[in-house]
């Protein structure tokens, strides 16, 4: 049993409250807003190819987000979520991992998946729910997942992945894998009971999990000050007896380094680490949302200026690792690629009707086969009412 040993109690003269702000947590930052390494800060070592991989993933995601928000407006897809403002937090953290570490995301972290090499076609197939979608058209757009990329399929119910990430990492440890699990979640999701359960279990059961909180100030319309009291989520890590890092989420270099160090610790000591990245959700929550109902343009503009891609770009420019005109060409090419991929994906057939009962169980049980057969018979009676499936029934 471990608890404060009363024998060694430091008696306090008054029942003085421990104040709610007893714990001051600073923020790790490397680059200033112009992309220069802040004076007195040790510049983390970042290989050129990793830096470019981060940067090009940032570009990719920017282009993808812009095009897909437009595609949603045009009614080509039903739903989209962008990560504007959080590209550094998401992509540079993925870069701090080994590519075979498991990533369990919330939903706004397609940047991490892109970093892992999920292809443009794969993104499109998911968003268009076509028969090439790895997820077989079962979930709304942006619910990606890929065994190959070690990226767990997104699940809409918030925070459920947090205790799962503890369990997943426990399995990695049990098997002696040199791997950890990184779990993304928003500061809103951190209010769920599953957050508490998962953090505490990871700490007690010593799982190599990196809990990565994207604190972007909002959960849909709910501002952070209606979500928790205090300055963020980091202080909770200390409450769980967990090593914790707060990092400037607009600073890719700092995020990269923080995650790298966290991974090293998690894997070497089989211990979880909490990282809180301070960022801002510059765009709407999703294409179903309109933030003008709950926040001012002024506020948005203030944060927009902190552009994390620009900051990292400036750093790379100073390093002499990129050339802007080449990058512009690259972006133009990307835009075309995305457009073409949209056109291609929307032409691919929807999944076969048989998929309706697959994967509920490993093998469809009898009653499901009967239900499917019944359905097929019905569709054959009314082919015009079920045009997409009727035409393909044998």
């Amino acid at each position, binding site marked *: 049993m471990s608890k404060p040993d009363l024998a060694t109690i430091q008696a306090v003269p008054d029942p003085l409250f421990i104040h709610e702000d007893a714990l001051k947590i600073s923020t790790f930052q490397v680059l200033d807003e112009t992309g220069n390494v802040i004076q007195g800060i040790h510049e983390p070592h970042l290989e050129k190819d990793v830096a470019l991989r981060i940067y090009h993933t940032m570009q990719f995601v920017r282009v993808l987000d812009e095009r897909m928000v437009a595609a949603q407006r045009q009614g080509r897809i039903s739903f989209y979520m962008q990560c504007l403002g959080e590209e550094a937090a998401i992509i540079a953290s993925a870069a701090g991992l080994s590519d075979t570490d498991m990533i369990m995301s919330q939903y706004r972290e397609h940047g991490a998946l892109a970093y892992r090499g999920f292809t443009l076609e794969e993104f499109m197939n998911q968003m268009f729910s076509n028969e090439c979608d790895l997820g077989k058209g079962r979930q709304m757009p942006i619910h990606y997942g890929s065994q190959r990329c070690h990226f767990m399929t997104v699940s809409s119910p918030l925070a459920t992945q947090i205790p799962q990430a503890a369990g997943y990492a426990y399995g990695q440890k049990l098997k002696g894998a040199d791997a950890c699990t990184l779990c993304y979640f928003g500061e809103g999701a951190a209010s769920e009971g599953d957050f508490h359960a998962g953090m505490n279990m990871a700490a007690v059961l010593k799982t190599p999990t990196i809990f990565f909180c994207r604190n972007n100030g909002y959960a849909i319309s709910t501002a952070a000050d209606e979500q928790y009291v205090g300055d963020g989520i980091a202080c909770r890590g200390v409450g769980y007896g967990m090593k914790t890092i707060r990092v400037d989420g607009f600073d890719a270099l700092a995020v990269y380094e923080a995650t790298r160090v966290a991974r090293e610790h998690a894997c070497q000591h089989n211990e979880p680490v909490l990282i809180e990245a301070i960022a801002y959700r510059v765009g709407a929550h999703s294409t179903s949302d309109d933030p003008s109902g709950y926040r001012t343009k002024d506020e948005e503009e203030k944060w927009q200026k902190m552009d994390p891609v620009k900051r990292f770009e400036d750093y790379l420019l100073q390093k002499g690792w990129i050339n802007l005109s080449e990058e512009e060409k690259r972006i133009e090419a990307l835009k075309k690629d995305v457009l073409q991929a949209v056109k291609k994906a929307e032409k691919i057939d929807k999944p076969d009707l048989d998929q309706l009962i697959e994967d509920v169980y490993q093998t469809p049980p009898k009653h*499901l086969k009967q239900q499917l057969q019944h359905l097929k018979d019905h569709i054959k009676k009314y082919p015009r009412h079920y045009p997409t499936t009727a035409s393909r029934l044998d």
Partner: protein
Amino acid sequence: MAQMNLLQAINSALDIAMAHNDGVVVFGEDVGQFGGVFRATSHLQEKYGKGRCFNTPLTEQGIAGFANGLAAQGCYPVAEMQFADYIFPAFDQIVNESAKFRYRSGNEFHVGGLTIRSPYGGGIAGGLYHSQSPEGYFTHTPGLKVVIPSNPYQAKGLLLSSIFDDDPVIFFEPKRLYRAAVGEVPEDEYRLPLGQAQVLEEGQDITLLAWGAQVEVIQKAAQLAKDEGMSCEVIDLCSLLPWDQETVVQSVIKTGRLLVSHEAPLTSGFGAEIAATVQEHAFLHLEAPIARVCGLDTPFPLVHEKEYLPDHLKVFEAIKYSLNY
């Protein structure tokens, strides 16, 4: 009377309840200034202040727990679960706490003032996590009342009754109808009784039973059947727990046939309970097996939503099957 859609009817009910009784408190994720992701709680914070209409942190179990405490204190909490798909983290607070609060304390304490509202159901391309119809789970829980309106008029009248009812009520709103269903709704307060089904159309050959958004589906099927000379009695159940056995059983005794339809998966859906009860009480009158036209036993799909849903054609086919049995 005014033309209102279902959302406006809900909003009007909340507005009237809050004006009527200071103890009515409305909260949930994004219900405050923003008025909820569907805008069911629009303008309530403006009118009644942040103390009585507010955003909560993002925790359904917390929202339900908080609501239980507030109700035990004597208030009338109206808590929103943003989607019925996300009510499950609150399951323990609802099933083990709300439902058993009065019973376990011998009526020393109760949460009679509690109402939990939540949009439910499919038909909006929402896939498996924005389409569920979890009402069946709650009907297996004595101590709860479960209410589901099918149109704006009912929505307002039933919600007002639910809020001021002496027992905790789970109130599911068919989100597919939020804007689609429009009708005449009195602007003032009125209440509709809980536990009573409504016979929408009288008929002779078969009884069709549904609730929520599914009611219009069976009505459409009844029309198809009528066109072919079959006469359907159409019943809107309105309350699932307790439910109006008399009205349903009487109707089946008259027609000799019953079809129940819901979106939730077939197995152990509330249609099972209705079939089990009706076959017991109308056994000698049944001329065909009770038919259930329901969702398949899978999670709610995305691309095959149209095929999955128990639409009017499936209901129509089942009517014919029953009549030809």
